[in-house]
Structure formats: structure tokens, C-alpha cells
């Protein structure tokens, strides 16, 4: 950032002393930029949009490849089959898979009255996903300077998440499931955007490696005040050895809500949906 004709240029303008100069919060004149007000308005839009959503549940793990999206999509379908109004926000912006798992129709997104209509599956699950917006096979890339893109890319993804929450006409929903990517960054952004930590459904596979990664995620969720709904033990009964779900349940005083085998029948998802 460069400043021309610096107003506080030592030797050019009398400098009263840092001790006597007013600080940021002491300057209270109306600011036409109103950056803080713009941010506040963004948050307000999200709050108003989600006011008609009864429950928000983040499906997370901290570990990649444990089947978060698979669980999210099938729980959503089971809930829809049982008569609930369900939405799925695919928050894995860089590896979105929910549209395929929900067998969503391919069609341009429709806009009306200042919002975007979610795409609805044959079973009635409403969804928004970056996969609906990207060229086939293309990675998520943003316009902007290549150099030091790490500085702004995270903020850009957080903005996209905020827009998915606040600009999509979710309507009346019993539950909005958010399929989070591996790691904790998206969860932290979500807490910030929502203002309150969402309830969390944790997915793990049986291995100790998964347990260690999921433990960190659950610890982070607890520290931020999220309600732990329970643990889904995924990919059980096969080659994967361990008791990650039971160990985590004991450690966090949480319930193992379901044990999902490699090739689950629809009834497995129905049972999980009932206890969620």
C-alpha cells in the first residue's frame, strides 16, 4: 500500500506525538466506505436467509477420505425420504462431489428476487455446490495476481461460503447439512460467518490415524462451543482395523450414531437419519 502526500510525514507535517494522536476507534465520523457496515450487512443477510432453517449441522472430520460427502449425501436422502425438508451446502469448494452423490440434474442456476434457487434432487434435497458452477474438470481458480495469492485466496473462499449461505434461497428447511472439506479451516470460517458454532456430526473410519486427526477436529469444535451430535463410524467390517469411533466417543462423551459398512443398504442411512 502506498500513500501519496502523507499527512503524517515526519519533517513535512508537525507531528504532535503518537501519545496524543487519536486512534482508530476514536475516529467516529461517518465513513462513506463503511467497510465495517458492509461486513455487518453481509452477516445480516446470512442471518436473515437462515432464519427459516431449523437446524444447521456441519459434517466434518479433520481427516480426508473418510466419507464425509458420502455420509452427508445419503443422510440427506434418507431425511428427505422420511418427509423432512433438507438442504445440503457443499462446502468443499475445491473438491465438490455432492451433486453427483445426489444425482442432481444439470441445469443453469436460476435467479429471482435477489437470490439463487438451489438445485433440487429427485428426492427433494436442495443443494448448492461449486461443482454446479465450475467448468467440467476445472479446478477452482480465482481472477487476481498470482504472486502471494495465499494472502487472499482463503478470504475469497470464505466469501464464496458466505454467499452460498446468504444468497441461496434455502426456504423453510428442517435441516441444512454442510459438507466440510478435510481440515478445520472451513469450520472456523463457518463459525465466523454464522456468529454461532454449528452443531457437528463427526465422521471417522476405524483406524488410529483417523482417530488422531478426528480428535483434533473434535477438540477444536468443542473449544468453539459446537454441540457434538455424535460420531459416524464409516467403512467398518473390512480391512481397516481399529476402534477410532469408540475411543473418540469415550474421550468426548459422545455417541456412536451409526456403523456404516462398505456397502450399506438404504436402511443403514434411514436408521442414522432417525437418530440425528
Amino acid at each position, binding site marked *: *500500500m*502506498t*500513500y*501519496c*502526500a*502523507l*499527512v*503524517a510525514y515526519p519533517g513535512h*507535517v*508537525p507531528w*504532535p506525538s503518537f501519545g496524543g*494522536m*487519536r486512534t482508530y476507534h476514536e*475516529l*467516529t*465520523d461517518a*465513513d*462513506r*466506505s*463503511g*467497510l465495517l457496515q*458492509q*461486513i455487518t450487512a453481509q452477516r445480516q443477510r446470512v442471518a436473515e436467509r437462515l432464519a427459516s432453517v431449523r437446524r444447521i449441522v456441519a459434517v466434518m472430520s479433520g481427516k480426508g477420505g473418510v466419507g464425509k460427502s458420502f455420509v452427508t449425501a445419503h443422510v440427506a436422502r434418507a431425511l428427505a425420504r422420511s418427509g423432512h425438508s433438507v438442504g445440503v451446502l457443499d462446502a468443499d469448494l475445491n473438491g465438490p462431489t455432492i451433486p453427483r452423490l445426489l444425482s442432481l440434474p444439470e*441445469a*443453469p*442456476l*436460476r*435467479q*429471482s428476487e*435477489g*437470490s*439463487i434457487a438451489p438445485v433440487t434432487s429427485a428426492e427433494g434435497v436442495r443443494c448448492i455446490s*461449486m461443482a*454446479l*458452477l*465450475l*467448468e*467440467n474438470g*476445472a*479446478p*477452482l*481458480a*480465482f*481472477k*487476481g*495476481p498470482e*504472486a*502471494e*495469492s495465499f*494472502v*487472499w*485466496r482463503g*478470504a*475469497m473462499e470464505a*466469501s*464464496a461460503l*458466505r*454467499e*452460498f449461505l446468504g*444468497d441461496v434461497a434455502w426456504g423453510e428447511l428442517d435441516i441444512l447439512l454442510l459438507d466440510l472439506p478435510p481440515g478445520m479451516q472451513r469450520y472456523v470460517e463457518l463459525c465466523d460467518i454464522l456468529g454461532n458454532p454449528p452443531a457437528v456430526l463427526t465422521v471417522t473410519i476405524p483406524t488410529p490415524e483417523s482417530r488422531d486427526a478426528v480428535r483434533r477436529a473434535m477438540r477444536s469444535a468443542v473449544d468453539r462451543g459446537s454441540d457434538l451430535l455424535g460420531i459416524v463410524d464409516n467403512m467398518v467390517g473390512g480391512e481397516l482395523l481399529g476402534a477410532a469411533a469408540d475411543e473418540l466417543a469415550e474421550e468426548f462423551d459422545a455417541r456412536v450414531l451409526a456403523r456404516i459398512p462398505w456397502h450399506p443398504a438404504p436402511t443403514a442411512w434411514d436408521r442414522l437419519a432417525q437418530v440425528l
Partner: protein
Amino acid sequence: MKFLCVECDQQMAFGERQLPGDGTLAATFKCPKCGRVVAMLTNPMETQLVSSLGVEIGGRTVPEQPLQTVRSMVSTGREDAFEEGSREHGAGSGTSWSPDALERLGRVPNFVRGMVKRIYADYARERGIAEITPAVMDTARAELGLEGM
């Protein structure tokens, strides 16, 4: 972000914003007491950081469109991601012109009219603006430094 005229102990007021088109941004602030003007010039990375927050220095001059950041900043998006064809349908490639804007465009000399139209259309599309109006044209002129267009 605020600017203080230290000599006057006055908060400086936002003046104008310009986007020269090279990824940088210029914004001026003026001391309401002594009239001193300071210009803040941000490099492309800093400009991008502000854009990525979905805010505009100087305040919004045109209403934000739904999914504006996604529409305007994703470079690998599908051309047909959004339904087009009606004024309701936002950016994509379906930006429309209001009658007033078309009338004003008609006053641009014929030999540069196509280029000017494309500049305004690109401006609107990149910002997710569904309809180009005279107000949008004014904002684009100020931001892009297109005086006389």
C-alpha cells in the same frame, strides 16, 4: 481503514475511487478542515484482498448481486452456470441495457461505440450486474477512468 489529518486532528473524508485496470486501486481522502488530499494506492495483492472480502472502498454504488464474488472472481466458472436471457437473470453473459443507457450509448461516436459498449458490458459482467443503467455507466466511468465515454 480510516485516515487522520494529524495536523488538524480531523478524520479525512473519502473522495473518489479509481481502478486503473492494472489490478491496482487508487482512493483519495480529504481533510475537511485544511483541504489536504491524500491518495491511497494499493498494489494488486492488496486490491485483491479487499475484493475477496466482498466489500468496496468508497461504499457500494450499485446493488450487490447474489453470488457476486463467485460470479465475478472465479476464473474457471462455466459460461452457462447461470440462466440467462431475462433481466432477472443477473450476470453470466446475459447483461441487459436499460432504455436510458442505450440512449446514452447512442450518443457515443459510432467508430468507438462498439468498444465502449464492450467495456461497459465487461464491467457489468465482472461485477454480476444484471442491467446496465446510466448510474452503472457513471460508476464504471469513475472507476475505470473513462471520462468522455
